[in-house]
């Protein structure tokens, strides 16, 4: 072998860029998280793990973790289930599948910020179409009977709908009981189309002959064939979809920024929004960086768990 150095020239630029653009920022953030640096200051003080101590002790940050986790636990299962369900339904269609795909994928393609403004109007307690529609059902006995449960023999005023008809319908984004749920609903509405596309791709890779074999073996109902063929064969897709959905849900920001600003009373104070508020709005780079590092750790752990514990079981 000659002592050629060409290989350094081949991998050098790629490695340099990777370090500069991907790895360095993490180290910078990790370093900053140990300081009280603010942008524009000439110097900073080392504060050790004080920022992290704050993160795990103060109530507002506890609310942040709980908001983020609740959001993830709401959005991931529902958007994954809806994605799978719609993919199964669409793939069983002979005609019209393309149209459904396009329609369900529309929210994924749209700018979430623009969509958030539309939702803000729709959910407005006074002029919004959502409460308008709900209110208009109160004096129609058919809808009222169905939604309030009075047809099933329940006392109508004890049901959510019956009570809301008497008093008022919720301030979807202004009530801390509903705000996070509403944000999660928008997240699901926006995200399940993406999961659907991933599942559709996964479904095309299931060999047709396996379904034929299942038919021959006596898996007569669609549910039996789903259990015997579809679900196991979708294993790798499941892992991917759940990982991607979790990461995307942890990253939720635009709807919170546009609709609630983290409120009311920090009920929608999710991690990325907190990062933005501390690090950018209030120029507290230290605590902002600390949140970033914790966020990164969460996502990393989540990914590693999926790769090492779940992935092993889905590749046969």
């Amino acid at each position, binding site marked *: 072998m000659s002592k050629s150095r060409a290989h350094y020239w081949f991998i050098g630029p790629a490695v340099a860029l990777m370090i500069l653009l991907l790895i360095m920022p993490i180290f910078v953030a990790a370093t900053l998280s140990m300081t009280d640096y603010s942008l524009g200051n000439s110097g900073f003080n080392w504060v050790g793990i004080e920022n992290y101590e704050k993160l795990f002790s103060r109530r507002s940050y506890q609310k942040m973790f709980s908001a983020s986790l609740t959001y993830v636990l709401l959005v991931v299962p529902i958007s994954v289930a809806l994605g799978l369900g719609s993919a199964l339904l669409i793939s069983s269609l002979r005609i019209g599948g393309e149209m459904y795909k396009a329609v369900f994928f529309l929210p994924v393609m749209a700018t979430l910020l623009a969509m958030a403004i539309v939702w803000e109007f729709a959910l407005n307690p006074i002029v919004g179409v959502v409460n308008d529609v709900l209110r208009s059902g109160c004096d129609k006995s058919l809808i009222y009977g169905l939604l309030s449960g009075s047809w099933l023999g329940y006392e109508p005023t004890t049901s959510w709908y019956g009570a809301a008809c008497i008093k008022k319908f919720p301030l979807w984004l202004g009530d801390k009981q509903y705000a996070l749920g509403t944000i999660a609903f928008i997240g699901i509405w926006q995200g399940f189309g993406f999961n659907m596309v991933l599942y559709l791709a996964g479904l095309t890779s299931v060999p047709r002959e396996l379904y034929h*074999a299942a038919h021959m*073996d006596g898996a007569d109902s669609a549910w*039996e064939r789903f259990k015997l063929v579809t679900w196991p064969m979708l294993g790798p897709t499941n892992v991917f979809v759940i990982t991607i959905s979790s990461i995307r849900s942890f990253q939720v920001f635009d709807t919170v920024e546009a609709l609630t600003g983290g409120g009311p009373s920090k009920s929608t104070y999710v991690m990325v929004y907190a990062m933005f508020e501390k690090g950018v709005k209030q120029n507290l780079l230290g605590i902002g960086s600390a949140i970033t590092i914790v966020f990164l750790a969460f996502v990393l752990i989540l990914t590693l768990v999926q790769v090492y514990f779940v992935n092993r079981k889905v590749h046969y």
Partner: protein
Amino acid sequence: MAGIKLRQVTKEYGSLNVLNSIDLDVADGEFLTLVGPSGCGKSTTLRIIAGLETQSTGDVEIDGVLVNDVRPSLRDLAMVFQSYALYPHLTVQQNLMTPLRLRDLDFWQRLPLLGYLVPGRRAKMAKIQEEVRNVAEVLKIVPLLNRKPGQLSGGQRQRVALGRAMVRNPAAFLMDEPLSNLDASLRVHMRAELSELHRELQSTFIYVTHDQAEALTMSDRIAVMMDGDLLQLGTPDEVYKYPNDIRVAEFIGSPKMNILPGVVDPNGQVTCLGFVLDQSLEGTAQRPEQGPVSVGLRPEHLALRPDDTEGCFAGKLTYKENLGSDVFLHLETEGLEQRVVLRVKPHEANLVKLGQNIFYGAEPGKMILFGADGKRVGFSAQQSDGKPD
């Protein structure tokens, strides 16, 4: 065990006719092969029998019962697929148990965990396990029972797929090119094994292949299909010796039959490449009509001649294909587009050189005439009814 009947079965995909009125009568315990080039409709026919596809018109009968509207699992057939179609997440044992579980356990007994509490499950599972064990022993796959399909070789997967078909003890086995994913030597080995299995099980086998060698070696009868038509149904010997269509003649046999242009004159004599052929065509009942015909000659029915004697063709040797036991000589003949192939013994082949002009003649009585429509001329009713000899 059961006979299977197809009556005027057709299949259309939109405006495309895949099957044109197929009539087929498979006897109980018979090994019948559907053979033809890809796209001829043989797999579609098999899937229609299985119930995985519905025919456009016509009837399918199994054991005398009309099954047009019967779902696949209730037709009591088992199928072996080209890709084996084993469930990759289940072990071999679980794969073999699947058809029995689905047939013998009810919905509640199949539930995970809860199923164990349903009465009667334990006895049924014990029976299922015993049946699986028996089949695994017959196929010699007992040591593989705890592996997953991904850990098996092609031949082992093939056996497992066979096993999954066997455990239910079905009325008939349907096989869709089961050997085409195996390597050449294993394929030859499995041919023999499948034939033995058929003899042991005494069950009806319907076997689909594009490989005419598999069809000839294993079957009781062969059904040659092309372009959605069933061209000929007969024993391997019949189909080889008396192909009733020029397409069958060219498809069955390797290397394929030599087709030479010929003319029938008003006296009924056949002239081919300038020579008058001898008239004693084997099995010919009627004299061919006047006009152009195709003369079919198998490579083994042509022989080298030492010199340019009477009734002798000439050609230039362009290629020697040495198979060890035999040598195929490829000859270019003037006035012929395709090459003529001769099958000779190695010591004969040693006498001729590439580029040399050589003389050859046909064995008397072995040639087959095809009319302008591609049908065999002088074709007697005896050989066309498709019954074994």
